């Protein structure tokens, strides 16, 4: 690396230290500090901070300092910059799509040999082993925390009035979206969905495709990818689906607001918003699995805990102790029942079932049961680049400008083949 880059790094490190010092509370004397950068806002942030406080109060050896860093993508940008500036925290959490890239760059600490990690009873579909194709054969670098699947949220009142049930397949989705769309006055939409890579991947899987073919070629679902896009195009063209404005999580938030205000009778969003939507809706919220195309399929989402390799050994060991604490049933249950994320360990699910938690709360089971049709991500270092730079902008242009779906994906595939 050339010296000028060290100058850049030094500047970034200085800024990161100042920001970190401003934001974090003081570490009590004699305890090992664990700096944790997180990306949850609202209720999720409150829950996480309460769990961190619980950890800090219950033992006197380690002390976790949790610092909010913006949404997933802002947080990730800061994390990558901090890694380059050699000012990274010990612990953070990142979206699944970026884990292969970070692992390849050698910045993640392998966790397999830390005490207690082998005993964690993580639900396989949510852990590294089955989240990625061949993930189990690689050194363990990521542990699940806030894991999710996309689910459908239905406005119970509107569905009851119209005598409709949750759509079971794409044809029913089209029919329900059309039936619940009203064009008078400001108009109400039958369906709302962020034009986002995650939901498109769900549709691709339902159409029988995969982002990366079995031979390792970036196929973007081939014909299934185009079918998925055409479904969105058709719904948007006929006015029964509202593509929310804004990008990334701005669009997700807009979609939630459309649902809460009654402007959209049904939306697709993450199970992560379950508790938020239930608490803020003035109508009954019904959660439902996504409909089937030629089959049922969903991707998993959310983030994984990662320990940064650059941290001092004592702090990394302390971070792993915190992760073990977070995987205890009590914490897993606190987190999942207060947010809507899927409980990530089998023991937590068993405990919830034994307590009869799910019987009066069928919405909470939807994402968990959908794991039966969860499809793994390819372990590809280019996945994040393909998502952010190549596919996401083209999804928007295909749906909003009604560009030919096949042409859009052919262009995207060609770009994905180019070296980064």
């Amino acid at each position, binding site marked *: 690396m050339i010296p000028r880059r060290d100058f850049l790094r030094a500047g970034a490190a200085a800024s990161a230290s100042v920001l970190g010092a401003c934001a974090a509370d003081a570490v009590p004397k004699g305890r090992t500090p664990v700096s944790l950068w997180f990306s949850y806002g609202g209720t999720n942030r409150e829950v996480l901070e309460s769990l961190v406080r619980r950890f800090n109060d219950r033992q006197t050896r380690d002390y976790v300092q949790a610092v909010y860093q913006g949404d997933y993508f802002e947080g990730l940008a800061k994390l*990558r910059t901090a890694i380059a500036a050699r000012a990274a925290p010990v612990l953070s959490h990142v979206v699944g799509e970026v884990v292969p890239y970070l692992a390849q760059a050698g910045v993640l600490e392998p966790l397999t040999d830390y005490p207690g990690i082998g005993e964690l009873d993580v639900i396989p579909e949510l852990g590294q082993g089955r989240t990625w194709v061949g993930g189990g054969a690689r050194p363990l670098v990521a542990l699940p925390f806030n894991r999710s699947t996309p689910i459908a949220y239905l406005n119970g009142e509107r569905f009851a009035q119209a005598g409709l049930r949750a759509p079971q397949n794409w044809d029913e989705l089209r029919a329900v979206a059309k039936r619940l769309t009203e064009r008078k006055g400001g108009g109400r939409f039958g369906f709302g969905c962020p034009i986002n890579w995650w939901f498109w991947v769900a549709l691709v899987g339902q159409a029988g495709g995969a982002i990366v073919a079995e031979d390792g070629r970036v196929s973007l679902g081939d014909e299934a990818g185009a079918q998925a896009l055409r479904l969105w195009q058709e719904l948007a063209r006929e006015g029964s689906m509202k593509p929310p404005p804004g990008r990334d999580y701005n669009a997700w938030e807009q979609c939630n607001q459309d649902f809460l205000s009654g402007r959209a009778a049904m939306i697709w969003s993450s199970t992560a918003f379950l508790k938020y939507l239930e608490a803020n809706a003035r109508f009954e919220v019904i959660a439902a699995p996504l409909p089937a195309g030629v089959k049922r399929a969903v991707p998993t989402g959310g983030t994984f805990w990662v320990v940064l390799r650059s941290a001092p050994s004592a702090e990394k060991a302390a971070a792993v102790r915190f992760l073990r604490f977070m995987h205890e049933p009590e914490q897993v249950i606190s987190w999942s029942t207060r947010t809507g994320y899927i409980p990530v360990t089998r023991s937590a699910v068993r405990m919830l079932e034994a307590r009869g938690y799910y019987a009066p709360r069928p919405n909470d089971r939807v994402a968990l049961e959908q794991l039966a049709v969860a499809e793994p991500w390819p372990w590809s270092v280019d996945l994040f680049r393909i998502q952010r730079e190549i596919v996401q902008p083209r999804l928007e242009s295909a749906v909003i400008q009604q560009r030919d779906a096949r042409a859009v994906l052919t262009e995207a595939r060609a770009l994905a083949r180019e070296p980064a």
Partner: protein
Amino acid sequence: MKPSRRLDPYWMLLPTLLLLLVFFVYPLIMLVEHSLFSWDLLTPARYVGLANYRSLWRSGELWQTFTTTLSMSLAVVLGSMAAGLALALLLDRPGRFAAFVRSAVFSAYVVSWVSVGLLFLWLLDADSGIFSWIWRHLAGTRAPHWLGDPALAPWAVAGVTVWKITGYALVIFLSGLQDVPQSILEAAELDGATATKRFSSVTWPLLRPTTLFVATTSLIASFQLFDVVRVMTQGGPVRSTTVFVYAIYEQLFLDLRVGRASAEAVVFFVILLLLTGAQFLLFRSEEGA
């Protein structure tokens, strides 16, 4: 004034010169250097020559960003100048009411960009915003997606920017109007010139230097548009509001493509340099005229 010692001015300039070297010249050299590398901050940098420039050009991204920035900037400059001049002509009079309106219009200029963005995000909401409400009551149809339609979003953002910076144009035009000699206007009035004629033949020609100043400073400022785009549209929909500074931010901080972001910044620097040069030449020719 002649310095007592020949070197005194240079010593006095040294602190500023040092600041300029450290914070402007050195980063600029680094920027040019980084534009020749492919670097994601995590893996070692790889020398790629002019590949970053070629890739920006070939993908059409550079041209799209330039045309988006230019068209939005022109809309902002023309809009803010027209509104600023019209308001200046209306408010160039004594009285408390005119003073109140002058302050009210200028107050928008001192409000933070983020606050303005959030305010208009709410006002322009396709369903519950006041603009949509007016549209629905006048046209009786569903209001357009002001910020969700790629054909409308750049003009909506440009409109918000016009609202924000019109106060600046107003103040400069007001000071320009106060420099127009009353005697010439009175002489024209005595000669029977109508208000329109007095404006077109006296006021407007005498306001030319002011207009030029407002135009060039607003153009350069609007080329640097970022905050309002970040808050309102994040460059979308379909990159329709991805202006230069936002594109650089996206490449660097979201995609971590240091080389490509640097190449884009170098091009942006050259464009701003050309604009500044044009401004300089225009002022010189104006002074010579």
